[in-house]
């Protein structure tokens, strides 16, 4: 089956004060339709940068030195920034770890979701608001009216994260890149958000690139897993297979850290 997103031979360098070093080297990654792929590694290892590079949102200090990112037969690294703007949010969406800073503090949640619908889907204001309400319901928020009218700081972490997911799936993207979406949340909330991801995968035919440092999360939700260590991919394949029998030392370390 051809892949939806294909990253081949990607290398990213980073400038550290005055010296340059390689952050990621020869990365190969595939995301297929209706698939949840987990990208695992330790903090600072480059996982977030990999996610950002897909959307060409890397900070100036980082440069893509080689490689291709093919999405629907287009190399994203060769696409103009104007076309990238079209793709961002509409075809590939991203959700971040810190839900509080991902939202504008002076607008309420409902308006921010409606804004995405108005600009990308061309909906009227009225219709966009209705759809925002429907999306909030889709992400299993109970009191839609209250949440839609609330400001980001007035909501709990779990609710905000769901709202961020609602905003990301608003225009039905093909892929959502989720960067450590549950790291700041309690275990119980974390479990529910992961269950939500699974539901969206089947209901909306959504593919998710889930970036995390926690293998427990991977076991529960991912179809395939890619393990990143020291800037290289050390293991990749079917999640169940790898977690039951990890071959690489780093993967084994991560497994040990998540046992109870």
């Amino acid at each position, binding site marked *: 089956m051809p892949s939806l997103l294909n990253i081949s031979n990607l290398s990213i360098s980073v400038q550290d004060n005055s010296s340059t070093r390689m952050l990621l080297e020869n990365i190969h990654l595939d995301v297929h339709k209706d698939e949840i792929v987990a990208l695992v590694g*330790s903090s600072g290892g480059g996982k977030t940068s990999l996610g950002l590079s897909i959307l060409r949102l890397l900070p100036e200090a980082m440069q893509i030195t080689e490689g291709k990112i093919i999405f629907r037969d287009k190399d994203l690294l060769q696409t103009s920034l104007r076309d990238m703007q079209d793709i961002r949010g509409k075809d590939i969406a991203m959700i971040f770890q810190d839900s509080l800073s991902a939202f504008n503090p002076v607008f309420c949640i409902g308006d921010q979701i409606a804004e995405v619908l108005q600009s990308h889907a061309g909906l009227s204001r009225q219709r966009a608001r209705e759809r925002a309400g429907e999306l909030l319901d889709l992400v299993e928020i109970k009191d839609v009216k209250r949440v839609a009218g609330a400001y980001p700081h007035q909501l709990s972490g779990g609710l905000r994260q769901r709202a961020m997911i609602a905003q990301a799936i608003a225009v039905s993207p093909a892929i959502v890149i989720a960067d450590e979406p549950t790291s700041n949340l309690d275990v119980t909330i974390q479990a529910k958000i992961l269950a939500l991801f699974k539901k969206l995968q089947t209901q909306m035919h959504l593919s998710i690139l889930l970036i995390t440092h926690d293998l427990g999360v991977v076991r529960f939700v991912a179809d395939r897993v890619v393990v990143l260590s020291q800037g290289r991919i050390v293991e990749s394949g079917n999640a169940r297979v790898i977690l039951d029998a990890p071959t690489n030392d780093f993967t084994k370390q991560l497994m040990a850290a998540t046992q109870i």
Partner: protein
Amino acid sequence: MKLLEIQDLKKYFSTSKSFLGKSEGITRAVDGVSLSIEPEESLGLVGESGCGKTTLARMAMNIIAPDSGNVFFEGQDICCLSKEKRHALSSLMQMVFQDPFNSLDPRFSIRGILKEPMLFLSLSRYEEQKKMEELLCAVGLPQNILERFPHEFSGGERQRIAIARALAANPKLLILDEAVSSLDVLVQEQILDLLSSLKERFQITYFFISHNLRVVRRLCPKIAVMYQGRIVELGPREVILTNPLHRYTQRLLSAALSYQVQDEMSECHVFDKRQLREKQKGHFVLE
């Protein structure tokens, strides 16, 4: 003698105030909690965000004043102490906070950070220097970092510095408020290893607060579970992990183990009438 004893602590916050200052709603952050910690028997307190555990920890440290109830440290009531006694107390009971990025003042060098808790110990310059070196060695950090600043270190390293700072005053009790929650799993393991070795070496008792049972089980032979301001279950670690009796504990355990969570727990309105009853030796459940 018990190291820390919390008796029926209550703390209520008003949720919204009308224009004239009258409160329109009350949040019962801590609603009658009683706990005790024996020396060398660390206690883990588990509960979701918003259940009141941080408020409880702060009342135990005497940072917030409780609305009612008492806190005793080694038999002494900590609420109304003279200045000298309070200084003495602060060296016996210390806290490590959740956010390693904010719990160290970015403008202080590591030396300054480690020196602050030693202010009341009246040590000579030489003794201070030696002590700082010992502390850094104990937490697994190199000696030459004293002149550096917090922003030069990673989250895990900063948390080690925070632990070194907490140990500087030779405390008997260390309260860890979600101390590893914002760290990466591998680093979490390292810090838990460190805490385990420090427990042996310095004979410290931990009061470990977290939302994750997985984190608490390593260091704490006794575990308490908190929900909506009340303790719902309390007992030895093995019993809680293998045979949790209260619905909420079961929920936390399945979330931590397998990321499975049952449906919503409805709010328990009749909390007031419930008491902790001893089901087996040392195992209490709220019902």
